[in-house]
Each structure stands twice: as C-alpha cells, then as structure tokens.
C-alpha cells in the first residue's frame, strides 16, 4: 500500500524533534482525522537553516513531515512557501487515495511556521 520512499521516511524520519528558541513555530491539526503536526524553524537571511518536526499521526503523516523537512532545509522562505501538499506527496512516490489528506498537514504546518516567524519579526 505504501511506496518504498514512504516506508523509508517513515522508518527513518529526518529532522525529528524540537528546536529550542525556534524563530518560527507552526502547528496544524487535521480536520478529518485529528492528527497533528508541529514545525520548528531556524531562519537566517530568509533561509531555512534548521527545521524540526513533531508528528502525531499515521505512517503517511510521519513520512510527509520528514519529506517536507528535507525538501525545504536550506531553501529560502519563498521557496518553502511555494511548496505544495501535492509536491510532498509526489516526492514520496505518491500516497494511496485515502491517505492523501495526510500530506496536507506537512506543507500547511510549514507555512504556518513561516507566517508566525514573519509576524514575530514585524
């Protein structure tokens, strides 16, 4: 049911954890299943220098979080904002239809963290 990439990211998730004194924190709760994801950012010169996540959710949610973190680490905030949920799912080699909503958590929580970072800076 899950692709090899999903299994890989689920089994060995990248960038799990918290960042103390993070520059931006975003959190997203899935409306369909109640699962939850939290993203921590360290930003320098509009570039994501560090990213960590915590996820309470299914295998697809964990793999999506991990993939998302890998995709945006070292990228500009604008590039990160351009990342869509679909791109996360695609990068994982696709997700089964009933699990597509799980990848939504990842990009949404990331965008939330960036928004909070910018709001705090103003």
């Amino acid at each position, binding site marked *: 049911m*899950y692709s090899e990439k999903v*299994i890989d990211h*689920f*089994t060995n*998730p990248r960038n*799990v*954890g918290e960042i103390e004194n993070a520059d931006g924190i975003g*959190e997203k709760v899935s409306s*369909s*299943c*109640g*699962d*939850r*994801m*939290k993203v921590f950012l360290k930003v320098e010169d509009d570039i994501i220098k560090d990213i960590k996540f*915590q*996820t*309470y*959710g*299914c*295998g697809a*949610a*964990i793999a999506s979080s991990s993939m998302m973190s890998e995709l945006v680490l070292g990228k500009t905030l604008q590039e990160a904002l351009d990342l869509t949920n679909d791109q996360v799912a695609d990068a994982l080699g696709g997700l089964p239809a*009933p699990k597509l909503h799980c990848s939504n958590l990842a990009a949404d929580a990331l965008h939330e963290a960036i928004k909070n970072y910018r709001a705090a800076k103003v």
Partner: protein
Amino acid sequence: MKRIYMDNNATTAVRPEVLDAMLPFYREHFGNPSSIHWAGRETGAALEAAREKVAKLINCSPAEIVFTSCGSEGNNLAIKGAAEALRERGNHIITTAVEHPAVLSTCKYLEKHGYEVTYLPVDGDGMLDIVALEAAITEKTILVSAMWANNETGTLFPVDKIGAVARNHGICFHTDAVQAVGRVPVDVEAAKVDLLSISGHKIGAPKGVGALYVRKGIRLVPLIHGGHQERNRRGGTHNLPGIVGLGVACDLAGRDLPEVSQRLRRLRDRLEQGLLAAIPESQVNGHPSERLPNTLNVSFNYIEGEAVLLFLDMQGIAASSGSACMSDAFGQSHVIDAMGVDPMMANSAIRFGLGYDNTCEDVDRVLEILPAIVKKLRDMSPFYHE
C-alpha cells in the same frame, strides 16, 4: 525474519485437517447435492454430516442450521429476515453501539425502511447494562441483536441474561457469535438464543462459508431467494468444500476448546502484563475478566495505532487496529469510542488476536520489539513529554 501472525480476530489460517477434508470435494466429489444421481448422492451425505457437526458445537438440531457464505450474510439474513417476518407485530429493534458493521449498517438500512432502532450504550469496559436493555423494550420491540463477543475488544456480553430478558418479553433474540463460536463455549439452549451467526474463517475453516442458527419455529424471510436449498431459507448451490470444512473445524473446535482457550489465555495474559509493565501510560481496552481468551486490545497514549502497526509489520508481526473491514476508513473505532475512551488513547489502540499457532516465543518477540516502537513514536509526538 520470522513472521508472527496475531490477527486471528480478522481471519485465521485454515487448519490442515480442515483442508484435507475439503480437498476431495473439488474434483472428485463435486456433484450438486440437490441432484438425484451418484454425483449428488455423494455430496448430499457430506452436506448433512457437516450440518450435524456444526449443530453439535452449539447444541442445536441439524435442521436448525442454515449454511451461508459468511458472517455478514448471516447477520443480514437474521436481522432483515426476522424484521420483515415480524413486521406486523412491531417495528422496533434493539441493538448495541459496539456491534460489527454487518449488524450496524443493516440496522441503519432498516431505519430507512420504517424501523426504529435503539443502539444501547456500553460502559468503559465495553460491557452492556442489562437494566438498560430491559428499559429500552417497548411493546413494538420485535428483535434484539446483541453480539456474543466483541471483535475489537473481546468483551463478552452476558448473552444468557439477554436471552432470558428477550424470552420473557417474547422478543426474538439474535446474537452475532462470529468471534465466540469455537473460542468460548456456546450453547443456544442455555443462552435462549433464537438466531446466531457463525463465520468459518474465524475458526480455521475457509473464507466463503458460514452458518446461521435458526431456532425451530422462528420465521425468517430469505435474503437470497432461489431454489429449495436449505429448506427454502437460502438459495444457491451449496458450497460443499466450504461446508465440509466448516463441519470439521467445528468438530475440532469442540474437541480442543478447553485446552486451546487455556493456552491462548496464558499467552495473552503474558503479552498483556508484559506490555503494561514495559510501557507507561498504556491501558487495556475491554473487560478485565469477561473477555475472549485470545484477545488483547491495548492503547499507548500520545501516538497513533496505524504507525505502531506499520513498525510491527516491518518486523513481521501482523496485528490490527479494530476490525479489518474498517481499516480503509478513518478515525477511531466506533467500539473504543462507545466505551468513552479518551480520543488520543483511543487513536493508539491496537488489537492482538492470538491463534492456534501462536507460541510463547511469539509473545516474547512482541514484548521485545514493541516497547521500542512506542518509544520511537512517542519521541516524535508533539503531545509526549517525558
């Protein structure tokens, strides 16, 4: 990697003796038992022999057994069939909030057709309150459908008390005993049951066969209309190999039940106590004592059940979250939900269903592997703080 199968509440492997008994009926004795020639006579005798074996396991007479294709068909036939046959006497059905989808969605369907259904709640152990049952009865009540053993938690309903209440009020009593038959003693006389569903693939018979016990005198509108098979209660050519297999499986279950259930209970208790000891903030879902001996439903707070199952699966261990039929749907189990378990706890529930082939080493391997999985997932969880 050794594969360990602990999902026997979803389905079981066919037992070797069962398969051996079935094999001659595919190519050698394949006649239609309704036929008058040699090919039909051979199978006609085998059909009735199997019927006797099933009847013996639940203490009824062979003529009260109707062969079906699965537990779901049995539940649909019992509930729709009795509801329609009794329609002129009333339109009220009582069931419980924790029934299998085959019962619940059948009841939902009947609600669209002029029936009223009461879904009785359960307590924190998944247990039914017999007083609430009595209170729910009205003069329009025609049917009570309450399961013998819950498939997700293993909780055993007080079927004999339910049967007594129903009998006292002259109400037809159906019980979905798909998880109970072959695992705990089932006696339709003692429990005063009128209709009882059995499924082959939960007790070492193949998928594709089941049975419905229909007490003599209970009227039932058929679900599958057709020929004169099964005394006009179920049309369709008999699934002879499956039926023969069900007969043998019932025979074996009756013979082995005391020994096997004791053995599985010991293994299950070892697993349960080991997990509770090794993993803080974990809990058992289900009744502490009134429970199937093979079933353990356990929650590990702060994480999600599916993730646990995936990690177990990678290590070759097959377990499940709730009923297999629900696993492509989202969200919590309606059973754990109905027990009032905290949603995050409920989300982490996984079910072990031990079976005939499980050993002490299997249990010990799970005890070795699972605590680390839980720790890893908790370390990822935004809710968990050591």
